[in-house]
């Protein structure tokens, strides 16, 4: 029997065979850099954005204090909002840190400083500012320092201050970029792993070899899709966990991540069935990936009109994650988006099947040509 007839012959889809193929991929998967890549990138991105860029955009004035006389100011300053206070023991170290711009400003509180202020002696305030500190930071530190020192003698100020906040509080950076982390995690694992796996099997010839056994293309796609989906769920869940939001509304988070993982795995299967080689896959990813990623822009900049985001399929699992993290939305609040996400997954199924058939046809034709070449008599 030729490879072609075996491949086109129909056997029933076997869950056992899907399981065997999945176990093989799970066993070999960790050896592939792409799996590591897909699982590591969300961590790196989270750490980079939260730790590096988050800190960059929300830089607070940094004040160092050397307290040589158990001053009450230390406790008061430590409770201030928006000023990062560091306690040091050595005045020389404080001066060096201010000079190096590791601190914006520093106080050296001499022994008996509090008592001297209360006695109205107007003691010398050893306040230092770094040469590289901003003028506005210097003003903030100086004015805040004076106000705190005034507070030591409990004298009533000649004026009352009514602090009024205007407008809505902006969402913190880590909340607005959460959908970016989630899509990176879910899409990298969900799309790239099934796609790269299929391409590797095609290029190595193992796909054609498997299809001459009772294994069907649908089982192959099922195993690859399940692998991508599993890894996408793991990557998405871990990303939500390290961002500290999984517990806010776990049911919404989990359903959204699973739907996202299914959707991305289907995209991966379509991409892997279509692309000739890894380079083509990356080229398609770079251009086509935009369709998957662009809704993220509307979460990062919430002032933009959100209707364009609704044309992106990923919006329908990212929006529930976003709303769950911001307002603790329940399944009842986001069911419409989740149903649309599920409908997109269903709508993608025929495309996956069609691409699978196309791939099977191509592999069969190639195998037939090889068979014919092999039986060609040598002249």
């Amino acid at each position, binding site marked *: 029997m030729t490879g072609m007839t075996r491949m086109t012959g129909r056997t029933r889809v076997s869950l056992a065979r899907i399981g065997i193929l999945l176990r093989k991929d799970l066993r070999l998967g960790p050896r592939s850099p792409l799996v590591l890549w897909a699982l590591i990138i969300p961590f790196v991105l989270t750490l980079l954005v939260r730790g590096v860029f988050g800190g960059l955009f929300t830089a607070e004035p940094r004040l160092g204090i050397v307290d040589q006389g158990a001053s009450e100011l230390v406790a008061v300053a430590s409770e201030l909002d928006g000023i990062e206070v560091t306690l040091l023991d050595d005045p020389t170290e404080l001066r060096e840190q201010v000079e190096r*711009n590791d601190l914006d400003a520093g106080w050296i509180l001499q022994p008996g400083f509090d008592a001297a202020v209360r006695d109205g002696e107007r003691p010398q305030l*050893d306040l230092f500012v770094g040469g*590289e500190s901003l003028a506005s930071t210097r003003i903030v530190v100086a004015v805040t320092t004076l106000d705190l020192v005034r507070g030591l003698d409990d004298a009533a100020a000649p*004026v009352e201050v009514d*602090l009024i906040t205007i407008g809505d509080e902006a969402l913190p950076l880590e909340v607005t970029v959460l959908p970016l982390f989630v899509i990176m995690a879910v899409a990298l694992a969900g799309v790239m792993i099934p796609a790269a796996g299929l391409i590797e099997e095609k290029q190595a010839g193992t796909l054609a070899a498997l299809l001459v056994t009772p294994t069907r293309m649908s089982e192959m796609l099922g195993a690859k899709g399940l692998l991508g989906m599993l890894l996408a769920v793991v990557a998405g869940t871990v990303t939500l966990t390290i961002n500290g939001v999984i517990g806010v509304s776990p049911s919404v988070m989990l359903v959204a991540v699973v739907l996202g993982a299914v959707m991305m795995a289907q995209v991966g299967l379509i991409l892997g069935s279509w692309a000739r080689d890894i380079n083509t896959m990356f080229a398609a990813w770079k251009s086509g990936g935009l369709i998957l990623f662009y809704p993220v822009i509307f979460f990062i900049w919430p002032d933009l009109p959100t209707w364009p985001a609704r044309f992106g399929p990923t919006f329908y699992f990212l929006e529930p994650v976003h709303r769950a993290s911001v307002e603790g939305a329940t399944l009842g609040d986001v069911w419409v988006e989740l149903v649309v996400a599920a409908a997109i997954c269903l709508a993608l199924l025929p495309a996956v099947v069609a691409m699978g058939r196309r791939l099977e046809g191509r592999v069969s034709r190639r195998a037939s040509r090889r068979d014919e070449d092999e039986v060609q008599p040598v002249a």
Partner: protein
Amino acid sequence: MTSRAGVVRAFLAKDLRIHARDRFYVVVTIVGLVFYIGVFWLLPDSVDETLHLGVHVQDAPAEALTDLVGDAEGFEVTSFGSADDLEDAVDAGDPVVAGLDLPAGFLQAIAAGDDVTVRVLLRADAPEELRPALSGMVRELAFVLVGEQPPVTAPDLETAVLGVDRAGEQLSLRDQLRPVFVVLALFVEMFALASLVAGEIQQRTITAVLTTPARISDVLAAKTVIGMLLAFSQAAIIVVATGAATRGPMLLAVALLLGAILVTGVGLIAGSLGKDFVEVVFWSFLIGLPVMIPAFGALFPGSAPGWIQVLPGHGLVEVMVRTTAYGEGFTEAFPYLGMLAAWCGLVFVLGVVLLRRRVVRL
């Protein structure tokens, strides 16, 4: 008899042809350069160190107050004709981030010791530190108006500022990001070299050429030269196009050359370890990270943490920042150049050894 230089030249010409034919890298290189240089010139060339405050005084000209606080360095005060205008401006965040709304007869009431309440308006997303600072400022203003002395003797400004006073001359985002762009360009070229090397290993063209009079050392020399040439030229284009070449051009050239050798070494390592495109991406990223991290670290105020100071890219970034932003010379840059050169030697030798072993085992 074929001279060694001739063999190396032949390899160089071949590698340049292959590189030029690879549309992926050609596009990434050109788009990258245009993007970096374009973004650089779009970025602000100065730092806004000023707090923009709005003031409204009911039934009195705001100048009475703006005169009082407006001269202080770090403040810019705008007066508003009504409380509503002030609220709208604060809400819009333009042109002010916060506002002081003073009641009618503020100055007289303060002087008379009457109860006075001042509204401090802040946008919800205003920096946290402005809350205590502006409240304190209003109270301190009131103390001054009633003739109260400050509770402490203020330090002498000249001794209070430690280090070079850069007020008004802060490092702009452009200057901070220049090393990032240079390092990213170096990274792309390192990636290109790694792909070139991995491709030759996979297609076994290296084995094929070794059946000719060419030696492994010729191949290695050609790969080194092409890697350095590509990396150095990209980095130099960015430095020149961002207007930094006039500040210490020799020192910058030396630093960029060392940086090019460093990424060439990394490219040789990644190319020797990676078997296909995905593996090359993986290894390039993993090994290239210690070269890139210091460039991002330089975006933060203050000296780099100890662990960043020992990374391979730190010397390059320090020399670039110190030369282009602060005009420092060879003397100040010497320790950083030394460290960079040491890393170059180490990484480059490792790259050559790995590639030689890989070729020999083919």
